[in-house]
């Protein structure tokens, strides 16, 4: 009912025969904040890519916002993507566009109205605290600022779900805390957040649900959990 993400017996085999996910069952409620942890090669990336349908499961159902995206037709994928914000370790900003243009780009390519775009871009830049840098180019910003721009871009379409794949992977500890602060604000607005991370200190101090993957299976799923691996 209140589930935002549901996985039922999800398997993923790559064409080269590698089994990345082996029967995942899980549900994430609306507005929940979830860390996905685990050693390299545990299937975290595959897991994350399933949610924004970069990958299709070999078997099983993935229900997001009450829709099984495993059976989504190719031409419906773009419309589904508009409901999912994605943030990466490497920011993926366009170097020749300003901060403002980078965020606006995401709304322009889904053909939003210019008046709305202007208003919404200023809103999200305000939310991530970069309203004063809107004319800067990405290479004039620090890593943390660049990541905040990419977060602003990911949420400008008001997605109910935000996926973050190692968002603090390239950032120093202090900047990482700032990013977590932005996520907190977004989460408080009701957005469900799934964050894959290796950052032990963040997981252990900002308490949320922790899902640990190993060998393509969920080995641990705790509310208010801990990182559980050596940093």
């Amino acid at each position, binding site marked *: 009912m209140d589930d935002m993400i549901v996985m039922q017996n999800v398997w993923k085999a790559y064409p080269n025969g590698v089994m990345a996910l082996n029967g995942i069952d899980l549900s994430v409620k609306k507005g929940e904040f979830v860390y996905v942890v685990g050693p390299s090669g545990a299937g975290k990336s595959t897991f994350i890519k399933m949610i*924004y349908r*970069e990958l299709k499961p070999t078997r099983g159902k993935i229900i997001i916002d009450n829709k099984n995206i495993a059976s989504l037709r190719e*031409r419906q994928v*773009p*419309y*589904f*993507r*508009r409901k999912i914000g*994605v943030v990466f370790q490497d920011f*993926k900003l*366009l170097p020749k566009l300003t901060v403002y243009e980078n965020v606006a*780009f*995401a709304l*322009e*390519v*889904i*053909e*939003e*109205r*210019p008046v*709305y775009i202007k208003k919404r871009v200023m809103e999200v830049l305000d939310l991530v605290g970069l309203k004063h840098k809107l004319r800067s180019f990405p290479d004039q910003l620090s890593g943390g600022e660049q990541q905040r721009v990419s977060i602003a*871009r*990911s949420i400008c*379409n008001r997605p109910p779900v935000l996926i973050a794949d190692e968002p603090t992977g390239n950032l120093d500890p202090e900047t990482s805390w700032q990013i977590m602060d932005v996520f907190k604000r977004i989460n408080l607005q009701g957005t469900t957040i799934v964050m894959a991370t290796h950052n032990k200190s963040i997981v252990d101090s900002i308490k949320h649900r922790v899902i640990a993957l190993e060998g393509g299976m969920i080995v641990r799923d705790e509310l208010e959990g801990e990182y559980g691996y050596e940093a």
Partner: protein
Amino acid sequence: MCEMNWKGNMVMKLRTMRRHVSESLKSLTRNGWMTFASVSAVTVSLILVALFLMVMFNLNKIAGDIEKDVEVRVYLDRSTTPAQQNQLEEQLKQVKNVQSVTFQSKKKGLNNLLSSLGSDKGTFEDLQKENPLPNVFILKTRQPQQTIMVANEVRHYPNVQDVRYGKGTVEKMFKFINIARNIGIVLILGLIFTSVFLIANTIKLTIVARRREIEIMKLVGATNAFVRWPYFIEGLIMGILGSVLPVLLVIVVYHFAYYSLSSNLSQMFISLIPFQTMAVNLSLLLVGVGGIIGVWGSLSSVRKFLKV
């Protein structure tokens, strides 16, 4: 979030289209040399297409004209009475493979002859008084090849003085046209494929340059159509640019050829396709072929990249 009323939708489309056009112009100038190479390739191909078609269209028309003139002329004996003439007409209509039988009186025949002589006809004005031409039945056969059979059969009918028909000219002409056409088609197809390939490569360059942009577009939910449009336009522009020079060439060359040749040819009872008809139709055709080459090239390279 956005109202989908008719007006809102149209406004949105227009804005989006402007964006696509400006995106494609940007990358056309950015990859200037590749653009130039592709456009040149299209130009060269289309020039050959144009020259080839100018000749082919005219040969076809001439052959068609001659073919239309393939007929069996049955000259009547001067002593034929009107009753015998009617009887013969009935007989001729019964002959196998005869499509039509037209009577041409000697007076009409003379008028035709005089008018075809044009300004020289004054010299022959005297003939009006004493017409040397016989009455003629003109037979059209269903196929040009049947003229020989029909002519041979009719030759022995009563009151028939002579039978004449064109021999083999048309067949020879069509044979020549066929060979020329096959050679031309092979040559042109080769050139067209080369142009398509070059355009595909140019587009590929712009796609690689904008790979990250496309990645982000797909991530935030832009449709494939939206991603594809600028490349489509880019190809179209290159194709159409490539047809500009060939079109100008057609106009100049055909203008020259038509007005210098047609007076000579008309003495041989041959007429070329009028300048205006050729200029308009061939130009449209060239622009069309150019556009198709461009779009074909661009779509063939975008397809691979969109399969993410």
